[in-house]
């Protein structure tokens, strides 16, 4: 049944294309223009939008970085990891320790290096990378779901360390995150006082730009990666490890590398998460966070960088928005009131959304977006357009890899 469909589509594709000359990827001017406009809007937003939305925006930016990193591992390479929360924690704790001051808060005797926050951020990324590197021999040898189970151990180790290494992490009470600064310019409310077009640029406004820059960099890096040699190797090893290795890809090394890159993304995301919440605490980095990240990339579209960003937007912004509009929403109640708690309501919605995606739209939000784009350009659904649509359609990206499937009969 499925085979005849496949053959049918294949033949249809072929006859449609017969006699056509090379349909090179079409470069339209509309796309860069739209991107430029979108960027301008994002840059101007702090002038018009209130603090809540800017703070939400920074949280979303942090989630985007983390989701892109996880998607490189899970969506592109087909390796499942539940340890993402652990690597976020490494980034967050490292930043807080390196940039934070020593001193006692209440009973806790906290240690910190008091170094510049930028150093703390870089250290957070590097240390998360190092943790990923230490784990990567395991990551390189396991495939798909097995890696998922093995990586679960890291989350529990992380929880234990967060709770017990009080001098660094603040223990179960957590500790507050030092505010970010860049060469003397702090991302706080003052120092220096800043007004743009008579709008005060305080912490929320400043962090907004930081988030925008970091998320954009993370996005561009991942896009470049996927479109070149390492990206092709990763995608092929997801589709068939045997084919990848026979074509010269050192499969183990690439699995290790992508795990390293993914954990560095998580490290940066962890630093941003800590900055966004203003503190770190063990319960922020539990298994639930890993699951939320998986939800982001499944909803957004496995293997798609843009999809990861969309999924991150949806999953990380929704609870915050629910919280803010708890009064206006049916069923959702504020703290201490009847009805669903906002976080809970958001979780039900994610659950529902994931079921819908798995059933009806396996390519996630990214696939949905591509479908609309295609419809807008070509009502007949003709073949004139290359991959954008077709790629995301066939990129079900289910991490499948029957061993030696391609080589035995």
């Amino acid at each position: 049944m499925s085979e005849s469909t496949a053959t049918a589509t294949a033949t249809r594709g072929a006859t449609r294309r017969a006699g056509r000359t090379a349909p090179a990827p079409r470069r339209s001017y509309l796309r860069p223009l739209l991107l430029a406009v979108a960027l301008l809007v994002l840059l101007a937003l702090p002038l018009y939008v209130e603090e809540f939305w800017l703070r939400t925006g920074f949280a979303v930016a942090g989630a985007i970085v983390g989701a892109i990193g996880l998607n490189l591992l899970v969506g592109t390479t087909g390796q499942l990891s539940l340890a993402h929360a652990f690597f976020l924690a490494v980034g967050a704790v490292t930043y807080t320790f390196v940039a934070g001051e020593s001193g006692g808060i209440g009973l806790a005797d906290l240690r910190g290096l008091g170094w510049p926050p930028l150093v703390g951020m870089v250290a957070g990324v590097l240390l998360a990378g190092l943790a990923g590197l230490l784990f990567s021999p395991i990551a390189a040898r396991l495939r798909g779901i097995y890696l998922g189970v093995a990586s679960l151990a890291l989350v529990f180790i992380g929880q234990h360390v967060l709770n017990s290494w009080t001098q660094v992490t603040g223990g179960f009470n957590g500790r507050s995150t030092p505010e970010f600064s860049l060469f003397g310019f702090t991302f706080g409310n003052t120092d220096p006082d800043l007004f743009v077009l008579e709008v005060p640029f305080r912490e929320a406004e400043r962090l907004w730009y930081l988030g925008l820059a970091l998320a954009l960099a993370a996005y561009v890096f991942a896009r470049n990666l996927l479109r070149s040699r390492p990206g092709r190797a990763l995608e092929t090893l997801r589709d068939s490890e045997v084919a990848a290795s026979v074509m010269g890809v050192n499969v183990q090394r690439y699995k290790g590398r992508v795990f390293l890159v993914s954990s560095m993304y998580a490290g940066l995301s962890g630093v941003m998460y800590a900055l966004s919440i203003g503190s770190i605490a063990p319960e922020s980095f539990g298994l639930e966070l890993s699951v939320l990240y998986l939800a982001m990339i499944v909803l957004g579209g496995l293997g798609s960088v843009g999809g990861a960003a969309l999924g991150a937007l949806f999953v990380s912004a929704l609870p915050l928005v629910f919280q803010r509009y708890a009064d206006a929403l049916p069923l959702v109640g504020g703290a201490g009131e009847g009805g669903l708690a906002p976080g809970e309501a958001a979780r039900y919605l994610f659950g529902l959304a994931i079921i819908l995606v798995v059933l009806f739209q396996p390519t996630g939000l990214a696939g949905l977006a591509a479908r609309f784009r295609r419809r807008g350009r070509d009502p007949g659904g003709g073949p004139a357009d290359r991959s954008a649509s077709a790629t995301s359609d066939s990129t079900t990206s289910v991490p499948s890899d029957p061993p030696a499937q391609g080589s035995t009969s």
Partner: protein
Amino acid sequence: MDGVSAAADVRSDVPPVLVEDVTVRFGAITALSQVSFTVEPGTIHAIIGPNGAGKSTMFNVLSGVYKAAEGQVRFGEHRLDRMRPYQIAGIGVARSFQNIALSPAQSVAENLMLGRHHLTRAGFVAAGLRLPRATREGRVHGGRVAEIAEFLDLGDKLHTPVGVLSYGDQKRVEVARALCTEPRLLLLDEPVAGMNAEETDRMAEAVLEIRSALGISVILVEHDMGMVMSLADRVTVLDFGRRIADGTPAEVQSDPEVIRAYLGSGDEIDPSEAAEAAAAAHPSETPGTTS
């Protein structure tokens, strides 16, 4: 394409392939038992045999995917039986898969570029930051990939996702991808299975041209007897994992044991019928294309 059409004799860096007493077991099954043969440089060497004879298993040994329990495989000074698949690719051994193992979501060009993997260097940092050397490398190798695609009639499909191509086209992408590694030894596992007569003829021509223009060795697994007999310089016949004959096409064709193997395998009286049956079975086994 220059590389292929420029006349050349046997390349001086193509050593013989020496397969010596190779045995492969899967639990109780002995897929290959003490198989030996030699592939002389610059020849087209066919491996034939009924379904399940162990032909693909031999390819998996040659490309490092399976480890031989006994015996050895030499390629010049290299011991292929001791190397990992990516290392074997690195010394110029390329292979196409019987059951297409392409990435369906990637375009033809992207799939072919994977063949350039061991010839290129760009790592994660260079690629992510689009360093000039990474983009230059991509451009240069993209040019060669386009030539090879043109050679196998895929020039107009470079930007088409492989998953929507016809079965015959996908088979050609398989062969093109192997060629893109600039091999010294090319292993083709049933390159024309599922193709129509015209496509088969073109593929046969292509194989001849690859051999004559590049001067490399080709090992061909094929059920299409017409193709085997007209292309091969030498034929090794396997049956139930054993080598039952080895010689020129004419010798092998008249070998009583070979005739018995093909007649005795029950329903597959005619080898070409067997080929058709195999072809019909393929699309369902194609990994990924049925998504």
